[in-house]
């Protein structure tokens, strides 16, 4: 006997009501991070020890500030989605879990605003 209503099957959202969107979000951000993290490692290895002016010149090129913004946004989204699962798995007290999930989202959002603004200010100096 099938206990599941066909509508639930058609919606495909499962018991957590969010379907496969979290899973896809984690994979799509992971794929985007492959080139972005390679670029970041290159930047850190080549530029992190350089004088300020060299780094500023680098980030004043549009392509580099675009890549930096993409990196910040993609990494924070991937990190937020990842931390969400870890908290779901290990934190079993409902109020604490809700608070932690909100805090992770808040930090990711604040980090995104700070990072994007910093890249823009740096590029325009």
């Amino acid at each position, binding site marked *: 006997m099938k206990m599941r209503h066909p509508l639930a099957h058609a919606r495909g959202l499962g018991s957590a009501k969010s379907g496969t969107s979290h899973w896809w979000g984690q994979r799509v951000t*992971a794929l985007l991070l492959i080139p972005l993290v390679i670029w970041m*490692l290159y930047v850190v*290895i080549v530029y992190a020890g350089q004088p*300020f002016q060299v780094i500023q010149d680098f980030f004043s090129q549009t392509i580099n500030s675009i890549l930096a913004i993409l*990196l910040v946004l993609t990494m924070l989204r991937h*990190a937020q989605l990842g*931390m969400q699962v*870890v908290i779901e798995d290990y934190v079993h007290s409902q109020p604490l879990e809700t608070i932690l999930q909100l805090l992770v989202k808040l930090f990711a959002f604040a980090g995104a605003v700070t*990072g994007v603004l910093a890249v823009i*200010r740096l590029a325009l100096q």
Partner: protein
Amino acid sequence: MATEKNTPERHQRPISPFMIGPYYKPQLSSILSIAHRASGVFLSVFGSALLIYWLFALSQGAAAYQAAMLWLVSIPGMLLLAALCFAIYYHFFNGLRHLIWDTGRMMKIEQANRSAIFVLSGSFIASVLTIAIVGGWL
């Protein structure tokens, strides 16, 4: 019920035992799996914070930038950077392994064990090379 989680304390029913702990002997698959999680959490907390700290410090101009970078060349600062270096390479290579699995490939035990060795040696070599280059030994 909406506010209740199915914790074992509340409902005395069996749960499957943790892969890490007294019930299973340690295996490459379980160790690398928990290491992916640990490196992801470590990168999320310290890596993304440091990236944003760096960009923010740069955005405040040359003098502020130099002052903000001083602590990074202390011993604790360098240890943090070295740990982040290992964590990002490990999570990167093992993340590729995960993405290949997601396409249904490389899932046989021997293949998973071989890719595990590849991930471990790849991230070790890449980290040592990176630290040597940044440290000026290469």
